[in-house]
């Protein structure tokens, strides 16, 4: 129905004026249904006026999702920039429309903003020099993309929580806390004895046991690497107890 209507529209207009330009909007990736375009969408043909005539032509979106221009006659041939602007954020490719002095279309090409005007792109229509000039030129608009106006707010999802390194660290630490004693129980007694000796020599475990025993652990002294006169350090096989040593001994054990 809509399309037959558009055909009638085109027929009606073309019989009335000397020449018209119709831009149809095909369905495309960013715009599957051209009928969703808001009614404020419009197309403009703009150029610098050579005379005081109309130099900005504007066409509203029709029911058939087209834009219809009645091209005026002018003193000289004009080269127009065709822009299509839509409130829905749809971006259309600009075209170059060359119109002869009698109002007939000479050619339509894609054009590139920020490039010289003579730098033409894909040809959309060009007049047949030998043949009869058609009254109505129909070209398809090209939808380039759609603008996104809004910022997506980060949604809360449990997965993102799992991905958080802090949470992962906490989970690993918790896991170790519960799993380690089980592992220790499964170790053979000899190995456990060795391990316990090592861990007792480790200053941290030593410190904890010291703290439990009521002794003061000299944290600053330990960090400075000095031999603290602590009871735990006295038990240690090496006098310079440090984190590095501990790790070394662990490696040896492994």
């Amino acid at each position, binding site marked *: 129905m809509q399309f037959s*209507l558009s055909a*009638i*529209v085109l*027929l*009606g*207009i073309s*019989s*009335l004026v000397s020449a018209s330009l119709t831009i149809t909007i095909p369905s495309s990736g960013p715009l599957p249904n051209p009928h969703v375009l*808001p*009614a*404020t969408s*419009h197309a*403009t043909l*703009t*150029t*610098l*006026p050579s005379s005081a005539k109309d*130099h*900005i032509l*504007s066409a*509203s*979106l*029709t*029911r058939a999702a087209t834009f*219809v221009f*009645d091209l005026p006659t002018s003193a000289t041939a004009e*080269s127009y*920039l065709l*822009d299509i*602007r*839509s*409130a*829905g*954020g749809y*971006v259309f490719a*600009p075209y*170059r429309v060359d119109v002869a002095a009698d109002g007939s279309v000479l050619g339509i090409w894609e*054009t*590139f*903003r*920020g*490039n*010289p*005007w*003579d730098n033409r792109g894909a040809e959309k229509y060009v007049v047949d020099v030998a043949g009869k000039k058609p009254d109505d030129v129909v070209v398809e608009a090209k939808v380039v993309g759609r*603008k*996104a*106006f*809004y*910022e*997506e*707010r*980060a949604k*809360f999802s449990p997965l993102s929580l799992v991905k958080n390194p802090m949470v992962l660290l906490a989970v690993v630490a918790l896991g170790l806390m519960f799993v380690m004693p089980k592992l220790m129980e499964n170790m053979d007694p000899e190995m456990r004895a060795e391990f316990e000796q090592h861990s007792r020599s480790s200053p941290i475990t030593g410190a*904890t*046991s010291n703290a*439990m*025993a009521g002794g003061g652990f000299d944290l600053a002294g330990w960090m400075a690497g000095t031999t603290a006169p602590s009871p735990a350090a006295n038990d240690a096989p090496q006098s310079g107890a440090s984190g590095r040593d501990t790790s070394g001994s662990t490696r040896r054990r492994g």
Partner: protein
Amino acid sequence: MRLKALLFAACLSPAVAIYSDEVNHVDFHHALLGTPSPDSTFFLKPSTASNASLLYTLSDKLLVGAVNPRDGALVWRQNLSRSADSPARGAGLLRGLDGNDALVGAAGNCISSWSAQDGKLGWERRFTEGVVADIELLELEDATATSGVRDTIAVVGSDGVGIVRRLEGATGKTVWEYKDTSGDVPFQVSSSSTEVFYISLQSAMLKGYKIKITALDPLTGRQTRQQVLNTDTDVTTPESVLYVGANSASPLIAWTDKSQKSLKVNVIGTKEVTSIAIDNVSGSEIRQITVHAPNKLNSLPHFLVHFVTDAGAWAEVYHVDLKSSKVSNAYRLPYLQGQSVVSTSAIDANVYFTRITEAEAIVVSSASHGVLARWDLQTPPSEVALHSVSEVVAKGKSLAVRSALFREHGDWQLVRNGQIEWTRHEGLIDAVAATWAETDFQEDLAHELEVEGHETLYGAYLHRVKRHARDLQHLPDWLKGLPRRILSSILTDEVSNLDSFGIAKPVIIATKNGRVHALNTGKHGAVSWSVQVTDTTQWDVKAILSSPGAVTIHPSDGSSVTLDILTGEILSRTEPSGSTLHTIAVLATQDGASLTTAGIGADGAPATALVKENGILVTTSADGRVLGWISEDNKAPVWEFVPPSGQKVIKATARPAHDPVASIGKVLGNRSVLYKYLNSNLALITAVDAKAKTASFYLLDGVSGKVLHATTQTGVDSTQPIASVVSENWLAYSFWGDVTTDESSAKGYQLVVSELYESPLPNDRGALDSASNYSSVDTLPLPHVISQAFMIPEPISHMAVTQTRQGITTRQLLCTLPSSNSIVGIPRPVLDPRRPVDRDPTAAEAEEGLFRYTPFLEFDGKWYLSHARDVAGIKEVLSSPTLLESTSLILAYGNDIYGTRATPSQAFDVLGKSFSKLQLVLTVVALGAGVAVLAPMTRRKQVNALWKA
């Protein structure tokens, strides 16, 4: 490297985007139409499939709009004047029919058909013969009708020639044409179920007009008969004809005699003129007579005549006998004191009249005088209702009615069964000036602190203790509100109430018809009060100043009026000065605490001499000169700038009054500094030469008038908007640039940005070096200017810059885009003219935030401050700082009113919606629970370890 640049561009853009859940929360929008015209406003069911109807109107601004009667939201709107060449004679015309998905509108020489449901264009016809005098939709369907869209009958008239055309409903093609070259004034067109009538006014012998009616065959357009009604010189102007009905079983034409003693009614198509004596029950003079009749073919041929006097109103209902065409009085709606409006609606053949007075709304049937439904109006109206349209719906046995009333001063209200459903403030469309009001809630405190500062130590201490003791009386209330406040702050969206940071400042808007409105920005821009200040239609407000608790409005006649911002009460007025002022300059006093105004005449000279504190003033005169003035002299300018011959000064801009500079230099990637050229007296002059098609931009020093920088652009269309702005050490302008003789030139809209530096070399301050003072008069060094041009996809009609409290936040260039009805805020870093051209940025440049220059600047969707809204007809955009450094308030007015907040560097000092207080509380609770569980476990383990040891 390129990837890096792209990445940077990508991470730059989200800085300004709006979250979709913040829409309607941070912004408000009044989408306006203007004053609805009484005979082009109606309820209509656009589709036969659904029973839902929309409210359609054509306003005095020639905007066609469809309004949802449920909530008053605008469904669509179109501008009829955009396509019309010649200005419309009077208001435009809009016609529609139930179940017909096409509205036909006419303005000037243009007729257009619009889809009633979504506002898309059906067809458009422009006539070269003259302007459209009248249009009517043919309700009758005949064999020629091709589709469901009804045909239009249009009268196009110019001097002495009237052309009646039948236009096909779907295409606008002419079916037939009837030409009347008798020299009559083409007046109206009407139709009955069998005929089309062309009504013209024939000049009578002595004076006045006779009404000539030509009956036409609707199928062929051939004239079937012609009649001339004898009007006894009652009709002196086309306006004296009260009513011409259409689409009715018995279309009417009605007028009165000069003394308004009798009403003359003719059923169109008959020769007979019925004269009905007007029984003036009120005794006072009749001010207005309106005729209300249904315009449906199958409706009963009944009509109502409404008589309005200064004190009250009454109405008479008449019936038309279809066979004899006799008009008889049926009953009367009694005379009531006060204003009342009447409207007609029809259900099938039944006709109902709805009368709304100050106290009640009643519905009567046209057949008998019994009141079918009555509602008391809940809130007494404040303004006089001018006209209304109604829709009556039968619900079982009872009737429901909704009426759209247009009230004096621009409120459009929907009253449903006596209840006000919504109000559209259409009067705001005429906004000419606006400002944010400064509330004075802390004024008292500031005053008290001042008192304390001036007293003795002991006295000040006592005063303070007393003040705090007084404050204690608010403690119970505060404590009472505390739980609710905590609860609501956790549950509601808005994390912190930002009103106290100057976010929700009221907006004061002055309109052309002499009215001042206050909008509450905290409540979606609802109108909190509106006051008629003067009775005029051309209130030319030049400046509007706000001081704590009050606003002062300065129109061009030199008078001023001060209003209270909370109530709208007029606090004081000053009389007009007698001379008309061209512009009014707003000047800040030396300490910046208060603002004063200086009127400027058309010749550019200040009307009164400036006081010394005001410093300098740069003005433009009507004949295109730029003048510099110094205090205490309003006779001779200090300097004068005249552009080269052929050029005309069209615009002058200066740095905004509030334009703080956070840093005097720009730190480069290699830790050296480019010093900004900061001059608070910059003025950017735009001059165009329409013949040579050039636009020149002159940057002047306001004190000496010296040209600091000048540039000329070629191929410029001076009829298209040329916008410009100056801020800090940069300026920007945009224009339509066309192909010139230069081969590499492009066609399109361009935006040029220039930055001013003290010297081209980093770590160098040029001639002034470390001087603490400089003189504009002696040796003002010229700035080093770096410019860059961008091609932009759309014209820019107005430019402004976001303002923040300290200027630390990145600025945005606020551009009004008239062709896509939106406002875009372009981040300044994107517009940096130092972006490397034709190469990728070096590591140092990338560190600075520079990325590769591309000639085409596409507006990113996230830059759109108006996001998906259709903000039409904006003439001016204002920006104001708030107490939050991150946030700038934006207000746009002109046609629509749009207000929002901009956060160019993201809301870094506000906890946004993404910050969940609930989550924070839950985390703390979870941690607490974890400690409570783990503590005994650890203790047990330690004890065990001790035993083992």
